[in-house]
């Protein structure tokens, strides 16, 4: 990696990180979504004492992954179109360094900043569980659970939310992403349910970003959403990361092509 390349990547990452972190929208949306999550779900202090530490951690991770990623994805969706809206893209194109580094820097910086409030909320719950259950191992377990069950899905969401608005109008993407989150994660109900409709869906497949394959497969959480093997957990993580990388690659190729035809 040349000096210019690395400095552009680092500069774009740090700038995007700071810019996203200072947006009031990030904190307002995350705060409201978290309040709604607590309103309808259990906080770590409300789980029955009979539950195992790993079960509490898995359910806590799952609760945060239920619909908070909707805010996560939507808050990232306007990052790339913003450059075009402010007419900064042409100026940036005239500077040293290729669009690839700026694009990657935007993805890493904005994603890390948007992840931070989610991670802090997750960590607060994990620390509470560790103290309440007098279990020091809850902290590494909780961090591993975040890395395996939450992070791949969030990175997948971030990759599509940064990439898709390259070609899709932002409000349309916001609508499509919201619909996708329900359709691709929570639509599945058994045929015995009176609400069952045989809609084709990604929900319940390895490509479900809610992360329950990894939680069950890698951590062996008993009585969880579903049963999965370690191989299925790893496959789910691999698929989510691979599709995310593919989305970023496609967007990058499109941006390079657009620049060359300008």
């Amino acid at each position, binding site marked *: 990696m040349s000096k210019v390349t690395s400095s552009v990547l680092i500069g774009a990452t740090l700038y995007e990180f700071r810019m996203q972190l200072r947006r009031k*929208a990030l904190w307002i949306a995350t705060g409201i979504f978290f309040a709604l999550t607590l309103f309808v779900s259990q906080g770590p202090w409300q789980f029955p004492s009979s539950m195992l530490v790993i079960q509490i951690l898995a359910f806590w991770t799952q609760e945060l992954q239920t619909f908070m990623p909707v805010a996560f994805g*939507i808050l990232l969706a306007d990052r790339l179109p913003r450059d075009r809206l402010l007419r900064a893209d042409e100026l940036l194109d005239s500077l040293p360094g290729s669009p690839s580094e700026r694009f990657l820097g935007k993805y890493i910086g904005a994603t890390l900043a948007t992840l931070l409030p989610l991670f802090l909320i997750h960590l607060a719950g994990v620390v509470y569980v560790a103290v309440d259950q007098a279990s020091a191992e809850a902290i590494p377990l909780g961090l591993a659970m975040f890395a395996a069950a939450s992070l791949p899905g969030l990175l997948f969401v971030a990759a599509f939310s940064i990439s898709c608005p390259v070609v899709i109008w932002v409000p*349309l993407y916001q609508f499509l*992403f*919201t619909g996708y989150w329900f359709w691709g994660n929570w639509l599945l109900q058994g045929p015995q349910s009176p609400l069952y409709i*045989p809609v*084709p869906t990604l929900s319940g497949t390895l490509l479900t970003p809610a992360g329950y394959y990894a939680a069950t497969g890698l951590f062996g959480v008993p009585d969880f959403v579903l049963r999965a093997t370690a191989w299925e957990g790893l496959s789910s993580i691999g698929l989510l990361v691979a599709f995310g990388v593919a989305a970023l690659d496609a967007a990058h190729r499109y941006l390079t092509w657009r620049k060359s035809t300008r």
Partner: protein
Amino acid sequence: MAAQLIRYELRRLGWMGLLTPALVTILFCGLALLMTLGGADKAQVSRILVAGLELGLPLAAGVVAAGIAAEEPAIDLQLALLTHYRTTLLRRLALLVAWISLFAFAWSVALQLLGLWSLRVPEPFLVGQLVWVSPLLWFVAVGAAVALVLGGRSVSGALLGGLWTFEILFRDLFLSKDWLRPEFLFATTYTPGAEYWLSNRLALISTALVVGLAVWLLSSRTELMAKGGEA
């Protein structure tokens, strides 16, 4: 003059904005087609297509409305015009509602002609239009209000998407609490023919009118919007 204004506002909405309801229609029709190929019966196909009217079009309208309210590049100029900005904003929102309503009404007529409407909506056809009218007005009013209060398209889109997902995922909570039930947006999709259906629809319209009044008042304070957009 009015026709010129309407043409201008439609151009301002852009072809993506104009095509959004068509894309929603195509999306739900595609799902219905896949379901049909997968062996779904008529009642199930009817459910997804009516759900598209109640869940799909109103959310799309709300997100677009938030964008309209949050973004006015010439807001400083609006301050100097004889026509108040609140009039301009309400005209834009009304035009959006009218445009989406055209699609929604055509959609419901098509379902009626195909014999799918009455399978899901037991009310008379015209009263049954409240399936989409109520959530449409609610989403447009709330989307515009949130955008004016918080001043950003992203945060408004996120909150609308969150409320939409929240009401669907935790519908049992909304249906079991008397004080939440009037604000349940998807009564046709999840509890068709319920005795509270009409009162729920009217309550949603009432909420939309109250929030619409807030939009009117908020958009009167143009100078507050002239401070620049969010990073």
